[in-house]
């Protein structure tokens, strides 16, 4: 079985819990275990928070989730940032920093984290995957 879920969300803070809960309800319906759903919810929440806080040139953004029996593959796509693109060197934030832990958490709890610029368009794509095998 395959399930594709696409959400176009306003770039406001309330969109993060909305996206998390919508995907979580689908995954629960598909029988995905609590722990794996929690990992996915955290990573999705972080990706949404990143867009909400940094993609100031976007009014909306998209969340695309492709789920099959083995994997959940997620892309969070924004329409542009007024500062630098998503920059990350793979390390965590300085211990005393108030920001900068989001991508670290996505990497810790999911797989295949990639951040890329959109081809021929403004904006960035945060991609990650999660094995559903447990």
């Amino acid at each position, binding site marked *: 079985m395959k399930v594709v879920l696409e959400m176009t969300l306003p770039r406001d803070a309330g969109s993060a819990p909305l996206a998390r809960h919508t995907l979580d309800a689908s995954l629960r319906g598909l029988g995905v275990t609590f722990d794996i759903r929690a990992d996915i919810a955290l990573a999705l*929440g972080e990706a949404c928070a990143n867009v*909400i*806080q940094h993609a100031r040139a976007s009014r909306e953004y998209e969340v695309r989730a492709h789920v099959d029996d083995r994997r959940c593959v997620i892309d969070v796509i924004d329409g542009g940032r007024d500062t630098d693109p998503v920059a990350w060197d793979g390390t965590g934030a300085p211990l*005393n920093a*108030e920001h*900068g832990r989001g991508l*670290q958490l996505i990497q810790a*709890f999911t797989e295949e984290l990639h951040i890329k610029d959109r081809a021929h368009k403004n904006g960035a794509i945060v991609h990650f995957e999660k094995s559903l095998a447990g």
Partner: protein
Amino acid sequence: MEFSAGHRRYGEHTIVALTGDIDVHSSQRLRELLIELVGAGSRRLVVDLDQVTFLDSTGLGVFVGIFHRLRAGNGTLAIAGGAPRVREVFHVTQLTRIFPLHETVEDAVRPAGEGVLEP
């Protein structure tokens, strides 16, 4: 789950019990509440995470900010309780190196259980 918060005094401690999701949507309210408590004179904050259903990096950022604010006035911040999922984000981000993570509120308010906040 909708975020809410309550607090109570316990000796010289202020125990802040949080409920629901702490995320980019609710973290500003959490920040305002904690700043208000510190502004009103609370110097030993214990944050009870037992009823927290979700915690992301924006919530962690609030705790780090409050930690700095408290430390400037010789205060302390301790984190207590929480589901394994919620506690894990403190370990992954190594924040357990700057403030203590206790199993329970009782552990956090016990004199010997208080972490010494070093820079």
